[in-house]
């Protein structure tokens, strides 16, 4: 169960942060705005905070007496606390800066003249993204997804604060390893660690292959 929970959380968090960070990174790449640094700082903030601080913030916000918690309670007394959705939300906040930074680097790798050439021909920003940026940065985009997924898979502090550790309900690979060791079950901890390492190594192998492709693409035309 913890493996499925972790995969589910990591997958949802990766998809959500991709959908949030891609438009922001693309917008900030194209436009120099006065508030761009503020938006970027907000996205990067979780990177400079301990995950437990993110968790505490979410607990305050979505706890019984928090603004978000009281709002969600209006819908059949729903609560994010001690749920897999809560763990997913915590993971989203924690991995968002990683996704944003990786996407930004991927988009910046595209020759700005290609974007301008499309613009001169009448391409809209969305057409430029679809027809020029994505085809020329897809390796970087996949790397962003893989890095975020792996980080999401190992998320511990923030999701533990928000979702706790309830066996069969909110247990993840990272929390299960911790509580298995606490309970003296080294076998389970080792098995789960092995699964996590295997996924991580496979992801790194893929990233390496993609980076090789990027290097080949950098050869001047």
């Amino acid at each position, binding site marked *: 169960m913890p493996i499925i929970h972790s995969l589910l959380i990591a997958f949802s968090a990766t998809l959500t942060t991709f959908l949030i960070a891609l438009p922001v990174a693309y917008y900030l790449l194209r436009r120099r705005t006065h508030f761009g640094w503020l938006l970027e700082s907000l996205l990067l903030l979780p990177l400079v905070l301990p995950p437990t601080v993110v968790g505490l913030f979410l607990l305050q916000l979505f706890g019984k007496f928090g603004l978000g918690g009281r709002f969600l309670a209006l819908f059949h007394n729903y609560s994010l606390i001690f749920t897999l959705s809560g763990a997913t939300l915590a993971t989203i906040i924690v991995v968002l800066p990683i996704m944003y930074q990786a996407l930004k680097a991927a988009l910046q790798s595209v*020759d700005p*003249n*290609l974007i*301008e*050439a*499309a*613009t*001169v*021909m*009448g*391409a*809209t920003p969305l*057409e430029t993204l679809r*027809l*020029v940026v994505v*085809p*020329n940065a897809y390796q970087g985009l996949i790397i962003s997804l893989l890095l975020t997924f792996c980080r999401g898979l190992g998320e511990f502090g923030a999701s533990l604060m928000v979702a706790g550790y309830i066996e069969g309900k909110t247990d993840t690979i990272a929390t299960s390893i911790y509580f298995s060791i606490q309970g003296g079950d080294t076998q389970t901890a080792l098995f789960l660690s092995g699964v996590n390492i295997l996924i991580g190594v496979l992801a790194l192998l893929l990233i390496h292959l993609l980076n090789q492709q990027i290097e080949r*693409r950098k050869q001047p*035309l």
Partner: protein
Amino acid sequence: MTLNIDIHKQMNERQLNFQATLTNQIYGLMGPSGVGKTTLLRIIAGLTTAEAGRISCNQQVWFDAQQQINLPPAARQLGFMFQNLALFPHLSAQANIEFYQRLKAHPQKVTTNFEQQLITELELQPYLTRPVTQLSGGQRQRVALCRALILQPQLLLLDEPFTGLDDQLRWRAIELTKKVLTKTPSTQVIVVSHRRDEITAFTQNILQLSI
């Protein structure tokens, strides 16, 4: 066509000031490295904004700092050949030339007579299906020129179009470019180069930028 340019832009440690009225078909823009030749072309194209001044083409105002008018590049109906050619590396030569067909702004989906004529004049037929990454420097230069001309722009901006070609290829490319430009007399052209011989091969109308 009459192109009126009067622009002022602060560049790092100096001011780029340029004022001219262009009425002939082809102009050469010369000047030492770093004087602002590319910046001037980018301002005309709408890719960079000047701090002050006005650009108008015939009766249409493209840029007016005072009235806060700044038409987007596509609305200026121009072709731009970048110094590094800016060919889309994931596409073939033909897909680069016909890139406009993928855009909502240009719904036509058929190869026009003009396109066929351009491809023939520029001797691109044998390379059309090849990815641009597999073309030689001279072939890529011709693909970029073809792409810049395909929509029959009212203004064509060529930024150091023959950079990177050896002498023999350069003069061959200049001859082909001249030939094509004679077939598009309604397109006004500004060619940027730091080489006087390249410019004079095209025109005696020389605009000099100096520090």
